[in-house]
């Protein structure tokens, strides 16, 4: 007789003899243990003090700026700022779903639309840096000799050199589309040939561009912080139109009642005020300044 059959017989035999109490006591204890364990495991870690949720673009997070700024803000105010770093498009969508208190992104037109639709209270300029075009060391399309960004992009299109686009509706992607438009290149037509949309974040797109020997547009902070450059380098920079403005917005408590508006506004005031602006200016990576404060 197998073990199975034995246990089966035992279960069957003992069934009528067991009283209700005998069975329920261990069960109760088991249930209590399980529920206590679950409660412990599910509860968020005990964060001392207040917290704030910041929906942010990736470049500010990947550049290490927050690791520099936020501990100082915590010391100043006692508020823990938690950062969700996604592309600008996704950050705006998350904030529109009321999943965040403050929005920090870099697509001025989209930010103004966000405020106009009532999702944000007010948009503040925070800081800027610039976009750069990176490409292979050999620079097959000759961007190093280009006079302006329109000419640079035209050279890529004419030589059909591979270009990796974010293709993810992010701030950088929106900027890139404007630039192609200015260069009279219809990216929808050439997509899939030399123009390749990765549909991914800046870091993933840079990895792809390095792998394919492609050109791509990136913000300077992400590039300076990027470690898998191999033989890629900046091939075009310095055009006025490559200006990259970052803005900060409080999510509107009128639309999203759970927004911590007072705490959020205090954080924005600090960022756009003298202490925050000075700290932003003082943040460097390998001796290079990454962001230039310009709050009014």
């Amino acid at each position, binding site marked *: 007789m*197998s*073990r*199975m*059959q034995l*246990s*089966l*017989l035992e*279960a*069957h035999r003992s*069934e009528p003899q067991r009283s209700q109490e005998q069975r329920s006591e261990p069960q109760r204890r088991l249930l209590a243990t*399980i529920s206590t364990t*679950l409660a412990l*495991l*599910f*509860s*968020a*870690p005990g*964060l001392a003090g207040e917290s704030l*949720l910041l929906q942010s673009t*990736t470049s500010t997070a*990947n550049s290490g700026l927050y*690791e520099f700024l936020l501990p100082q803000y915590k010391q100043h105010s006692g508020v823990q700022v*938690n*950062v*969700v*770093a996604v592309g600008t498009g996704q950050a705006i969508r*998350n904030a*529109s*779903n*009321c*999943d965040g208190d403050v929005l920090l992104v870099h697509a001025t037109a989209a930010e103004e639309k966000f405020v106009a639709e009532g999702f944000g209270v007010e948009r503040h300029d925070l800081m800027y840096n610039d976009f750069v075009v990176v490409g292979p060391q050999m620079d097959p399309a000759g961007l190093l000799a280009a006079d302006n960004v329109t000419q640079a992009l035209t050279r890529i299109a004419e030589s059909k050199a591979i270009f990796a686009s974010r293709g993810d509706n992010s701030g950088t992607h929106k900027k890139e589309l404007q630039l192609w438009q200015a260069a009279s290149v219809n990216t929808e037509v050439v997509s899939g040939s030399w123009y390749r949309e990765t549909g991914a*974040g*800046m*870091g*993933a797109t*840079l*990895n792809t561009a*390095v792998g394919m020997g492609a050109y791509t547009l990136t913000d300077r902070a992400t590039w300076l*912080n*990027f*470690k*898998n*450059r191999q033989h890629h380098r900046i091939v075009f920079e310095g055009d006025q139109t490559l200006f990259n403005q970052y803005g900060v917005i409080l999510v509107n408590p009128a639309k*999203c009642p*759970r927004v911590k508006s007072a705490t959020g506004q205090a954080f924005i005031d600090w960022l756009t005020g003298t202490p925050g602006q000075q700290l932003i200016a003082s943040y460097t990576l390998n001796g290079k300044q990454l962001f230039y404060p310009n709050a009014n």
Partner: protein
Amino acid sequence: MQTFQQSFAHAWHLVVTGDATLLEIVLLSLRVSVTATLIACALGLPLGALLATQNFRGKWLVNLLVNTLMGMPPVVLGLIVYMMLSNAGPLGWLQWLYTPGAMILAQTVLIMPIVAALSRQVIDDRWSECREQFQSLCIPWHRCVFTLLRDCQTSLFTVGAAGFARAISEVGAVIVVGGNINHLTRVMTTAIALETSKGDLALALALGSILMTIALIVNAVVLGTRQRLQS
């Protein structure tokens, strides 16, 4: 390749120096995935046993659903859980989004179909051997399920291990519902994704090798327990 050597040196360095951030990330990964596995087993094993032993209307459909859900892409599940838990969603009042609770929920839903489908198979084999005895003894269905689960426990350990492996290795769901927030919801897989996006492939690979080592230890414990139960 240089990156590999660099990675293993890096991983070794992180482990021997007892890097505090790494420890935090590892512990959260384990906490989330172990909890998800326990809950998924608590729900999935009885469901698997029911599907193996009982006949009811629509069972065919439930089987089909469970099998299909095994192939659910984690990122799709993450989006669904995000939309449920978002402040704009029906469960927003729970305030679970961007907490470990949300990650546990997502992973539980992700692996429950796996646990249910695999345990159904394990128990089905056993059930066909001794179904007549059960029926002749007129055992109520819940005792029947309980006895079968206990009898198959050694095989079911492997089912639990499969569920755990799926949970600890997925990144698509936890990065959407957890948000990869430093010191709060950052786990091994989301940290690896982050370092990859920063181009720090050596550190990403180092974290990956640590993750695999942890999976190895957990599986060794499961295998050891299984063998002890068998003997």
